[in-house]
């Protein structure tokens, strides 16, 4: 992990100031997890809680996921650049109010691969592909914005999958989906999955079905990914929390790539952007006949 990353005092001071003045009811940030190594979300309600706040390269969670739960109060949130894209998404989709969220933006050095009890020294794959190291929306910025350099080939693995034959693709995905235990952690960790009733829980018609079996799992994964088409902000929390290692980013990033190619759109870059499937251009053809 990088040394000299000392953003903690600034985050704590700001959080203390906000809680003491009563500007916010709660600060959503990170604290040390029970393994003493990794991080977990912290909800600080009292100025005394502030000293638990940390920020380092283990702070993986996309805390924007919690904002819809806190709609009725005013909160401050510690946001990495990817989390800030989720905040923009939620603002664009009118799920949260800008004036009720105070964003403590953090310049992010990238998050390392870690599981409970174990920290690796490699950056997460999504961080190796990251194009934004500075939050896109913030009220207070912590850290020095670096010069941004786009990654060389962000869709190398997607292209490899595309090149396979239909039979190969089919058996690859069948194997991945067969493993799913349908814990729905991928949905629950996602800042874009905020429906009060998910299609997977609709009873009539029963789109997905309660059976935890290949057919049902396939519907779940394909439609989950497609509901996030043009909305996914690539925090990759779904894949990180998956207990059976299903490569969900391969689905999400295929759609991300095609959205970029077809519509020239990346989600979460602004609070005003309309998701590409919620709009259209009359003159476009998109490879279809007239």
């Amino acid at each position, binding site marked *: 992990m990088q040394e000299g990353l000392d953003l903690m005092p600034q985050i704590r001071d700001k959080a203390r100031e906000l809680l003491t003045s009563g500007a916010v009811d709660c600060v959503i940030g990170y604290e040390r997890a029970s393994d003493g190594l990794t991080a977990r979300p912290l909800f600080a309600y009292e100025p005394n809680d502030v000293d638990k706040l940390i920020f380092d390269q283990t702070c993986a969670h996309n805390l924007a996921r919690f904002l819809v739960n806190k709609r009725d109060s005013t909160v401050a949130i510690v946001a990495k650049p990817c989390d800030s894209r989720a905040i923009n998404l939620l603002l664009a989709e009118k799920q949260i109010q800008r004036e009720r969220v105070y964003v403590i933006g953090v310049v992010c050095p990238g998050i390392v691969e870690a599981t409970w009890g174990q920290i690796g020294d490699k950056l997460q794959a999504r961080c190796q592909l990251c194009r934004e190291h500075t939050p896109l929306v913030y009220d207070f910025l912590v850290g020095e914005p670096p010069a941004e350099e786009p990654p060389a080939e962000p869709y190398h693995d997607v292209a490899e999958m595309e090149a396979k034959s239909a*039979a190969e693709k089919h058996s690859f995905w069948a194997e991945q989906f067969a493993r799913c235990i349908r814990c729905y952690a991928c949905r629950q960790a996602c800042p874009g999955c905020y429906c009060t009733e998910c299609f997977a829980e609709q009873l009539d018609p029963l789109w997905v079905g309660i059976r935890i079996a290949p*057919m049902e799992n396939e519907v779940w994964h394909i439609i989950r990914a497609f509901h996030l*088409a043009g909305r996914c902000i690539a925090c990759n929390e779904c894949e990180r929390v998956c207990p059976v290692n299903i490569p969900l980013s391969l689905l999400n990033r295929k759609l991300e790539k095609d959205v970029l190619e077809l519509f020239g759109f990346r989600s979460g870059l602004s609070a005003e952007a309309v998701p590409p499937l919620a709009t259209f251009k009359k003159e476009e053809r998109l490879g279809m*006949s007239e």
Partner: protein
Amino acid sequence: MIEGYQPKIIGFLCNWCGYAGADLAGTSRITYPANIRVIRVPCSGRVDPLLVLKSFQRGADGVLIAGCHPGECHYVEGNYYTRRRFALFHPFLEYLGIEKERFRVEWVSASEGKKFSKLVSSFTEELAKLGPRREA
């Protein structure tokens, strides 16, 4: 080609154009293969990718969506959304191992009975060449 194999096609036809086009083919006595099972929808914009996926899961060899030509939607702009949605979903299906030939979005107006007939014929032929889908 497998001897005697008859592909199954699920057709989601919009009430105002695709379905009316199929109707015109019928009343004009223009024949087309009986391989298509028609589901009438109010607008091609109503077709959820979930319906397409479910069709494939339940044994369809091909899925067709037929709506009004862009600019001619009965609801003014429903089919513009269809176009975007399936321009994105089509390559996604292919990525998941469903050959791209198995899915079509076509614009068929109420006056295009002949076009509808040709469309179903060519789609059926193409699917017959491709053969049945692998069992899930």
